[in-house]
């Protein structure tokens, strides 16, 4: 059963990953990539890392949905309703992907995998987290906050209407001058 599920998911992941380069529509390419990532999520569940697998499904779905919007938004034709291909270096990207895939697959096949010692842990997710992060958990949390702050700062810097537009030259306006009135009584 497990072997059958593995092959189905693995083939689905590789095929839909390849199809990303074959489709002539942004939406199809995005959701083909999502199919590939969801299959990988399924494979992670199959490894016994249930939590990680389900989180992959959750994060990748939201991520790909948002990415679909951004990709279609920045395309040359209006709203992406016409068929198109990815213009930027499609062949090169496909070659790089194929090479990396081949490299990883060879690595998997040639690596001398150790035999299992002892029993499988009761909570593999916990063990994986400890061996990945361990004492560095605080570093990771800080890094996460720093990344998040960077994202917010970038957005703030990138918006056309800055705080002086909203609150006047001396930043003393009582109400922010926004083109769209907000929902919190402004």
């Amino acid at each position, binding site marked *: 059963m497990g072997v059958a599920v593995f092959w189905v998911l693995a083939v689905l992941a590789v095929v839909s990953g390849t199809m990303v380069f074959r489709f002539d*529509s942004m939406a199809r390419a995005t959701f083909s990539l999502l199919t590939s990532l969801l299959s990988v999520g399924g494979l992670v569940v199959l490894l016994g890392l*249930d939590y990680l697998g389900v989180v992959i499904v*959750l994060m990748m779905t*939201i991520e790909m*949905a*948002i990415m679909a*919007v951004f990709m279609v938004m920045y395309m040359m034709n209006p709203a992406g309703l016409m068929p198109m291909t990815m213009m930027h270096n499609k062949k090169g990207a496909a070659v790089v992907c194929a090479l990396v895939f081949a490299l990883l697959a060879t690595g998997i096949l040639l690596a001398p995998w150790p035999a299992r010692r002892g029993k499988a842990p009761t909570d593999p997710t916990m063990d994986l987290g400890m061996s990945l992060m361990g004492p560095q958990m605080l570093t990771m949390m800080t890094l996460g906050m720093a990344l998040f702050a960077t994202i917010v700062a970038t957005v703030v810097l990138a918006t056309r209407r800055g705080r002086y537009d909203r609150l006047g030259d001396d930043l003393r306006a009582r109400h922010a001058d926004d083109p769209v009135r907000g929902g919190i009584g402004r």
Partner: protein
Amino acid sequence: MAERAPLWTVFVLPVLLVIVALVAAGFDAVLSAGARSGRSASLREAAVRASWPGREALRHLVQQPRRTRASDVPLTRIGTALLPVAAILAGVVLPLGFRSVSDLPEGIVWFNAMESLAWAAVWLAGWGPNSALSLIGGYRFLAQGLAYELPHMLAITTAALGAESLRVGEVVDAQAGLWFAVWMPVAFGIYLLSAMAMAFWGPFDQPAGRDVAGGAVAELSGADRVLFLGGRWLLLVVASAFSVPLFLGGGHGPLLPGWTWTVLKTAAVLTVLVWGRRKVPALRMERYVELAWVVLTPLAIVQALVVAVVVVNR
């Protein structure tokens, strides 16, 4: 911890959910007809009104389907079929009393993941027909969905935090004495609001709203339309049913057996959501979205903090 129900419940679950969705849609139809032409004079008339969603579904099934020019048929099909499938998959972790089809160790994350699949489904169904109005509907849901999803996630996480487990069965067990709705009311309120929003129901139905001629649903016809709109009802049913194990004590209650309590509480929540839609005026979404980012998200974080402090000191 919830017991695992026997295998046949896998097949009963979709049927049960569809029945509940039909009853809820029937209730909504009775309220709609009542608002249009007064209270029904007889029980017979009320029954006719309640059967409207079922008749409407049958009508769409026998109707000649429309097809738009250069539509992306596979993506539309995937989108429309994915919505009910995601709703039913999310329902897998719902305990009826103290038994669920599968009490996954990370059931709460599973539920949220399936809800996000429904999110992608709406975009697909809106994009597929190659039509501006449905495209706008799909886009709107994604843009607004971000603002719904964050407080929603935080509210769900708060319940998991209170029980110190992601297993739905253990969340129910943790409420044997006191319901989470009592000591985390903010999270409960936010959950109800965002559950309605995730099923784009009530004041949040802009993605499928009349102002864009039906939005994401505009071009769907025939079986596609039945699947999509039915899936939306399923999503509403599942999302409101999930508030019972999360915040309302699941099957806990005096005298009656567990499953009756689950059914009663689910019915109560569904009634509030369906009936409440008529009592709330249409919201301007940019206002709600700002409210969600500026007020609800910080409130949800503060509520999570309070719960975390209580849990640490316990």
